[in-house]
C-alpha cells in the first residue's frame, strides 16, 4: 500500500501537553457551575423544531401517463407507487454517484502506480466495477422512463442518501488519504448499496413488478461481488500495513 500508518507529532490528545492539559482540566472542573448534565432543554427545543418541520420534498408527478405507466399503475392499484418511485430514484442517484466514486478511486490508484511503479489495486477490476455501476444507473433510468417517471428528477430518498454518502466522497477525493482509508469508505457505500438493492427487489415484487424485480436481481448479484472484492482489498491493505516492518523502529 502506498501510505503506511506511522507514529508522529499528533497533538490532538491531552497527553501531548501535560502542563496545559492539567490547567485546562482543573479550570473546567473549578470554573464550570456544577449542574447535573441535562439534555431536557435541547430535547424540548428539538421537539419543537420537529413538530414544525416540513418534509425534505416530494416525489414528482409523472410527466406523461403512457401506456406502460397505466399498466404499471394498474398493477399497483391499492398500493403506493410513489414509494417505489422514490426508492428507484434513490438507487439511480446512488449508482450514478457510485460511478464517480470508482472513477475517483481509479485516478488515485493510477497516481500511486505512477509514483511507485505498481498499482495498489487491480485497475481492470476497478474499471469493471465502475462499468457495472454505470449499467445499474442506466437500468434504473430505463425502468423509470418505462413507468412514465422522470429519471432526471431528484427524489427525497435520493437526496437524503446523497447526504449520507457525502462523507465517503470526501474521504476518497482527499489527496492525503491512503488507498486503505478510501477502501473503508467504499465498503460502507457498497454494504449500504447491497441492502438497498435487496429492499428494492422486495418492493418491486410487492408492487407486482416481477419483470423489473428480475432485472434488479441480476444487478444485486453483481453488487454482491463488489462488496466481496472491496472487503477483501480493504482487509488485505490493513493487514499488509500491520505486517509491514517499521524502519523507524529499527
Amino acid at each position: 500500500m502506498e501510505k503506511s500508518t506511522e507514529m508522529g507529532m499528533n497533538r490532538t490528545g491531552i497527553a501531548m501537553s501535560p502542563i496545559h492539559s492539567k490547567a485546562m482540566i482543573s479550570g473546567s472542573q473549578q470554573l464550570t457551575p456544577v449542574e447535573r448534565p441535562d439534555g431536557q432543554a435541547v430535547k424540548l427545543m428539538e421537539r419543537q423544531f420537529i413538530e414544525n418541520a416540513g418534509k425534505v420534498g416530494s416525489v414528482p408527478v409523472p410527466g406523461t401517463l403512457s401506456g406502460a405507466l397505466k399498466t404499471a399503475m394498474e398493477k399497483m392499484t391499492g398500493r403506493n407507487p410513489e414509494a417505489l418511485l422514490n426508492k428507484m430514484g434513490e438507487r439511480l442517484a446512488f449508482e450514478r454517484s457510485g460511478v464517480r466514486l470508482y472513477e475517483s478511486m481509479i485516478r488515485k490508484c493510477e497516481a500511486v502506480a505512477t509514483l511507485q511503479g505498481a498499482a495498489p489495486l487491480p485497475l481492470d477490476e476497478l474499471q469493471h466495477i465502475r462499468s457495472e455501476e454505470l449499467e445499474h444507473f442506466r437500468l434504473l433510468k430505463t425502468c423509470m422512463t418505462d413507468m412514465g417517471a422522470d429519471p432526471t428528477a431528484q427524489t427525497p430518498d435520493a437526496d437524503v442518501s446523497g447526504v449520507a454518502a457525502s462523507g465517503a466522497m470526501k474521504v476518497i477525493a482527499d489527496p492525503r488519504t491512503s488507498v486503505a482509508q478510501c477502501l473503508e469508505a467504499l465498503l460502507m457505500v457498497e454494504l449500504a448499496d447491497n441492502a438497498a438493492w435487496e429492499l428494492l427487489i422486495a418492493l418491486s415484487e410487492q408492487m407486482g413488478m416481477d419483470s423489473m424485480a428480475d432485472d434488479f436481481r441480476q444487478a444485486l448479484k453483481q453488487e454482491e461481488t463488489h462488496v466481496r472484492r472491496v472487503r477483501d482489498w480493504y482487509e488485505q491493505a490493513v493487514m499488509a500495513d500491520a505486517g509491514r516492518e517499521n524502519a523507524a523502529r529499527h
Partner: protein
Amino acid sequence: MTVNLFDTQGTPLDQQKFTLRELSPPPISKLDDDAFTRVRIILMNGIEQQANRFQHLCAQMNEALREPLARIRRVEHHQQTVVNWLLSGDHSPIETTIAYEQVAIEVTAAIAQQEPDDYLAQVYRYGLLEDFDHMYRYSALLDRVEGKDANNILQSYTDVIPGRPTSDEHRHPHDDLRDHYDRATAQPVSKLNALTIMSGEYQTRDYYMNIGPTFADPVARNLYAEIASIEEQHVTQYGSIIDPNETMLEKWMLYEANEAYNYYSCMEAETNPRVKAIWERFLDYELGHLALVMDLFKQHERRDPAEILPQALPDPIAYESQREFVRETLKREIDLRAAGTAFVDKAEESGDSLQYREHLNSEGSPSDAVAAGYMWQPGTELGNDAVRAA
C-alpha cells in the same frame, strides 16, 4: 527582527504573481500541526478578507483610486486564497468554528494586553469574555451533536468554561457603539489593533452566516443564528472604535501597514516551515503595497506618511496561551455590561438592551439549551459516568 516601514520597498507590485496551482497549496494537518498555526491561518484570512472588502468600498467612492485599488486588491484576493486554502478538508464546520473562537480568544487577549489605551483595552476585554462563552457553547454542540472533543482542535491552549452568558450578550444597537480613538493622538499600534480585531470578528460573522444554514441539526442552526447575531454586534463594536474622521487614503495606508504587521507577527511565531515561508513572502508583498499607497498618499494629500505610520512595526502579536489573563479577566469583569459607550455593572445596564434581549430570548435560547449542565472534560462528556447513565 525590526521592520522599518520607510526603508523598505517590499516586493514590487508587478512581481507579485500567482499560478492557479499556488492558490491551492497542500493544507496543514489537523492532527499534527500546532493549533496556533491554524489560529494564524484563520486570522490572516480575516485580515485579507477585510482588506478586500475595504478596497472594494473605496473604489466605489473614489474614481482616482480605482485603478491602483484594483491592482492591489487582486493580489490581496490571491493572498487570501492561498492562506484560507491551507485549512484541510477534514475539519468539520463545527471544528472550524472551534478554531475561529480560539482565534477570537487568544488574539483578542494578546491584543488587550499590548493595547496602550485603557479604554480600548477595556473594549477588547469586554468582547473577549463573550467570545470565550461562545467557545463553551460550541464545544457543547460539538460534543453533543458530533460526539467529538473540542480539545482535539484547541490542543489544551484554550479553556472551555462559561464566560458572560451568550444569552445575556444580546444588546440594543446603541449599546454596541463605543468611543472611537482620536486619529490625531492615538498611538499607531492602537489603530492597527483595532483593524486586526475588527477584521477577525467580521470574518467570524460572515463564516457563521455562510455555514449556519448548511447544518441539518435544528439546534445547531439556531445556535449559529444566535451567535452570528452577537458577532454582528462585535463588528459594530470594533468598527466603532476606529476614527471615522480618517481620510480614505489614511485608512488604506493603515490597512496595508496592519497587514504587514500581522504577517510579520505570524512569521516571527510560526513553527511550520512551509507556512512560515508563506508569511515571509506575503510580508514582502504587503510592504510593496504599503510603499505604493504611501506614494499615493503623498501625491493626493500632500502629507508625509510619517504623520500616520510608525517608523517601525510594533512588537509582534504574541501567539501563546493566554489562559491566566483570560481567567483573571473573567473573575473581574464577567458582570460588566454596556450602557451606551460606557461599561457599567450588571445592575446599571441600559433598559433598551434589557428589553431587546427579553424579546429575542422570549421563544427559547439555543445557547442556554445546548450547554445546559455541560462541563468540558477530556475525551467528551460521555466519559462522565453521570452522562453515560443518562
